[in-house]
């Protein structure tokens, strides 16, 4: 361990700045200097100096990002001035993404259509009201009239948008359970 540390302390300040930048970038949370020091086998002062210089270089560059100390750790974040564009961008982004609950609900509707809310509940074993709302909002499903049973519940089926989003010519192109079993064997 001693030896490894010795070997690694031959890093230049510029190298250390680069490494710290990369580690902060890949981390999910703000990175405390101590963690960096431990991983890299470098003394605390050297790490702190590198971080401070890195912060200054971010400021001098005046780009879209900044390096900041927060909650005892260091983090790369966007500059506050750009928050409008960032928010706008995140809003428009992945419109075709679905939560797992919505995906399951969509699966039941796709394979069992036309299907009512109580029937979906029975198959999934969970209430699906909010998923159904999401799917209606995203226009992936449409109502298909009411079922002639007690309470005349609404029936749902997939829409044309569903076909388009999932690249299907028609519903017959949905992979069948058998297709999948062929693969599992």
């Amino acid at each position, binding site marked *: 361990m001693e030896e490894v540390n010795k070997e690694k302390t031959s890093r230049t300040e510029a190298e250390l700045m680069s490494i710290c930048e*990369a580690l902060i*970038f*890949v*981390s*999910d*949370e703000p990175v405390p200097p101590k963690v960096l020091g431990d991983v890299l086998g470098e003394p605390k002062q050297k790490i702190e100096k590198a971080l401070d210089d890195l912060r200054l270089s971010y400021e001098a560059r005046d780009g879209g990002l900044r390096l900041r100390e927060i909650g005892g750790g260091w983090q*790369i*974040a966007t500059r506050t001035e750009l928050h409008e564009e*960032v928010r706008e961008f*995140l809003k428009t*982004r*992945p419109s*075709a*993404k*679905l*939560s*797992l609950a919505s*995906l*399951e609900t*969509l*699966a*039941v509707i*796709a*394979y069992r259509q036309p299907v009512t809310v109580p029937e979906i509940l029975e*198959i*999934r*074993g969970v209430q699906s009201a909010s998923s159904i709302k999401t799917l209606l909002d995203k226009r992936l499903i449409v109502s298909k009239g009411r079922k002639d049973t007690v309470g005349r519940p609404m029936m749902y089926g997939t829409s044309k948008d569903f076909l388009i989003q*999932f*690249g*299907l010519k028609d519903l017959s192109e*949905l*992979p069948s*359970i058998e*297709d*999948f079993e062929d693969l599992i064997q």
Partner: protein
Amino acid sequence: MPQTVPNIFMDVDSEQLVFDFENVQPHIERESRDQIKLTLGEFAGPLDLLLYLIRQEKANIFDIPIAKITDEYLRYIRLLKSMDITLATDFLVMAATLIEIKSKMLLPRDPVFEGDEEAEDPRQELVDQLLEHEKFKRASEMLYERSTIEQATFSRGLIESDDNNLEINATVFDILKAFQQIMERRKEEIQMEIAREEMSLAEMLKNIRSRIFTSGKITLLEIFEELKTKNEFVLAFIAVLEIVRTESVRVIQEQVFGEITLTRT
């Protein structure tokens, strides 16, 4: 000098044995005339094995000594079988193909085609397939290298904005899988319900024992008639054996294939 032992490890996701094949060649050592030692034997398929054997013989791929290669191939198959390795049917299909080509090569030429210079070589189709396969093998090595390089690159960790976006990307297969998972979940639930209703061995023992001791005797048929599931049959059978073994109950069969009666003594 290529290394002969690859780094083998288990791919947790696919539960497949994976080996790092960089600089590694499948390797068979010939120990004596009739013995071959397999040093490393994962060939991705019969074509790989064939290519390997052709190289081993230093043969020209465009002029494969088919008799010799077929013998080698069959010998390898036998070796794998003797090691209790289950062979994919593809290996056996290839064996059949080789034998067929070999026998075609032995046949005298069809007189109708005599003089026809362009008469099809029985090996041609196989050669084409080998060449095509070889190209894709190279391509997969290229992909392997690329992914290795790419694994040295990392993208940023999750940041706050991602929390507002806990969504997953979906394809039709995700839908199918989601559906399948729901169905499996349901199957499990249904099975659990049935299991709960089913009798335990203790209950079965108690049940049969009390019937014998209250009525003095009972036929096996009477016991089995009331049972619904295979599981209950098994339990009843074990219970009867247990009762006969541990208590003063006799089993009487008056004639061959006749009714069997349990009697309290």
